């Protein structure tokens, strides 16, 4: 019998297998059951809380009991390891609950009005007692505003990223890059206020005989401000991933720099750039605050983004949420489900597209 077997008989050591004393799983299960029972007796017996408090106190008792048992069997350090593992798992469970609740509520409450009339009619002439009404005008508004914003933001963003990667040198480029990052954090309401102050209150009266005018185009301007940093950052990352020998081979063949960029570098980085653009579109589609401030919101269909108030899907959800009608919550939830579906489809498509890029970090 070796010294090890004499001194510590329950430690098993063979060439392929080293095992120290471990707390059996049964013991931890027993501790869990005892904790739940004790907590239930304590809480429900004295009536100081409901099942939520039972769960919380049971969790605490379980961790305390586990620590005590593990200290006796395995040692302090191993016991601490178990406790932290338990806390980390608890954090995950705690976070999953509300997120699962959001998803569940979206699907269950949003399915109530998923019918053709919801997507085909607007809220024009719908009173507080009318159960009909839909989001057609809002969907048109979202599509037009986001479309215009994409048309404005994509060239600006891609060219800006080209500047940062290919032409930018020195302090100015560093400043631009720093402020692009800072711009990602601008709150959407500040972008809306900016377009309100600039476009709606100062510029639009020039075209409208002196009175300020809300329009879908103003919302597009605000969405452009919000989309721009995302597009610049992701395009810049993808352009940096294009290998240098590709560029230098082109230069060696006498191709000018602008042609190299447009014909060789951009097409190589294209899947990644499109991914970034789709993520920016997904963010813009969900923005409520800028549309609330500068597009005015309306119940009628308006196909012209340059004249007259327009609504958008996110604004529609917000307005129906604040509406006192009995039928408004159903409309709000269905519109929310539509909006989330739109955003998720864009995001998932963007992430799947990102896997197809040949460039790796």
């Amino acid at each position, binding site marked *: 019998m070796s010294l090890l077997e004499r001194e510590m008989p329950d430690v098993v050591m063979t060439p392929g297998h080293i095992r120290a004393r471990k707390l059996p799983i049964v013991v931890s299960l027993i501790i869990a059951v005892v904790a739940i029972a004790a907590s239930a007796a304590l809480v429900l017996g004295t009536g100081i809380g409901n099942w939520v408090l039972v769960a919380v106190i049971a969790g605490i008792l379980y961790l305390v009991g586990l620590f005590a048992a593990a200290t006796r069997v395995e040692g302090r350090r191993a016991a601490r390891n178990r406790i932290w593992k338990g806390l980390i798992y*608890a954090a995950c469970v705690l*976070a999953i609950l509300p997120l699962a609740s959001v998803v569940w509520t979206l699907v269950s409450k949003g399915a109530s009005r998923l019918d053709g009339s919801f997507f085909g009619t607007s809220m024009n002439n719908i009173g507080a007692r009318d159960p009909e009404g839909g989001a057609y005008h809002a969907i048109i508004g979202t599509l037009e505003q986001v479309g215009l914003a994409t048309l404005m933001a994509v060239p600006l963003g891609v060219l800006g990223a080209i500047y940062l990667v290919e032409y930018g040198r020195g302090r100015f480029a560093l400043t631009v890059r720093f402020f692009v990052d800072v711009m990602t954090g601008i709150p959407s309401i500040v*972008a809306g206020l*900016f377009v309100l102050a600039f476009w709606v209150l100062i510029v639009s009266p020039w075209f409208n005989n002196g009175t300020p005018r809300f329009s879908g185009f103003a919302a597009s301007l605000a969405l452009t401000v919000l989309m721009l940093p995302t597009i610049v950052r992701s395009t810049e990352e993808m352009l*940096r991933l294009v290998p240098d020998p590709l560029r230098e081979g082109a230069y060696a063949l006498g191709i000018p720099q602008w042609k190299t960029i447009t014909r060789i570098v951009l097409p190589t980085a294209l899947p990644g750039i499109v991914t970034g653009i789709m993520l920016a579109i997904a963010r813009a589609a969900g923005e409520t605050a800028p549309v609330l401030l500068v597009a005015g919101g309306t119940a009628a269909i308006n196909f012209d983004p340059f004249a007259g108030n327009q609504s958008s899907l996110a604004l529609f959800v917000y307005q129906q949420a604040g509406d006192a009608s009995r039928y408004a919550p159903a409309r709000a939830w269905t519109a929310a489900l539509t909006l989330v579906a739109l955003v998720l489809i864009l995001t998932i498509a963007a992430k799947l597209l990102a896997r197809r890029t040949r460039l790796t970090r």
Partner: protein
Amino acid sequence: MGDYPSRSADTNAGGPDVTGRHARAAGTGVSPRLPGVPPLGGGGALPTKARFGVESGFRAVSTAAGAMVLVIIVAIAIFLISKATPALRADTQNFLTYERWFPNDTQPHFGIAALAFGTVLTSIIALIVAVPIALGIALFLSHYAPKRLATPLGFIIDLLAAVPSVVFGLWGRDVFLNPVRDFSLWLNEYFGWIPIFGGDGPFGRSILLGSLVLAIMVLPIVTSLSREVFMQTPGMNEEAALALGATKWEMVRTAVLPYGRPGVIAAVMLGLGRALGETIALALTLGTVFNISFNIIQNGGNSIAANIANTFGEANATGRGALIASGLVLFAITLVVNMAARAIIYRRREFRDSAA
């Protein structure tokens, strides 16, 4: 790629003349241009660099696009200030210390003390709730979860970051309100002697509800950034800790967390920036009362952005100016927070490419 100059994150890495070579390679002749002398190189002259050709045009357009970013930020500041000043001049009270909000009266008196207080309080509480949980999830995804579970879960967390805030606000008001109300009643009954849980008023649409909804919204951002940071811990550090006999938690505590601290701080500050600017979720869940109170469970609470969303519809010209002034304050606060966060990221070169 041994003898090629590498295009690293720092554009000046190779020295000032490395990338200049590319521009020059576009086709300037090496020989000097003397007037009246035919170009060297024989009949097949080297291509000359046109003065107003496509190359310099494209370069100018790109530079202009890059400069637009700075122009936009400066324009935001300028136009907000220009539209806010008339309202600020019409204000009969001190804008920074007055609590009430009546800009539409004939004698406008309004101030952002209560609004700024509510904004900062809700954001801080949201961070206090969200950051430990987010770090726990990030550690789980990077170190504790099996690989086959970690990738889809990380994907789902990224998707949740894309859900619009109006959905969270709607859920908070319709579904989460009653549990929070019950929780507030319980807190008031057993912990009412602590000032923040005191009071007898109606409970529900309170700072607590707004902060919890905000925490749920900030969670995915902090989680995904922290997870990227934790996954970048050098394997050597982790294995060295394990080889010295550390348990898994000790390895995390000594190798992963200290390495990731700047990245985590930056992620938290970015989450703070988002929480400060959140509009719709707070507009739907806060009780919109203009006072400064640390009681977080009573109906009340207001934030700058939520106030703008709620009162914009009925504001007259001075009212709009007042809202723009409050937006200017919000812009300044988020600018400072974001600049600090980015400065922390930039100091750590490794995180430069992975920052959101």
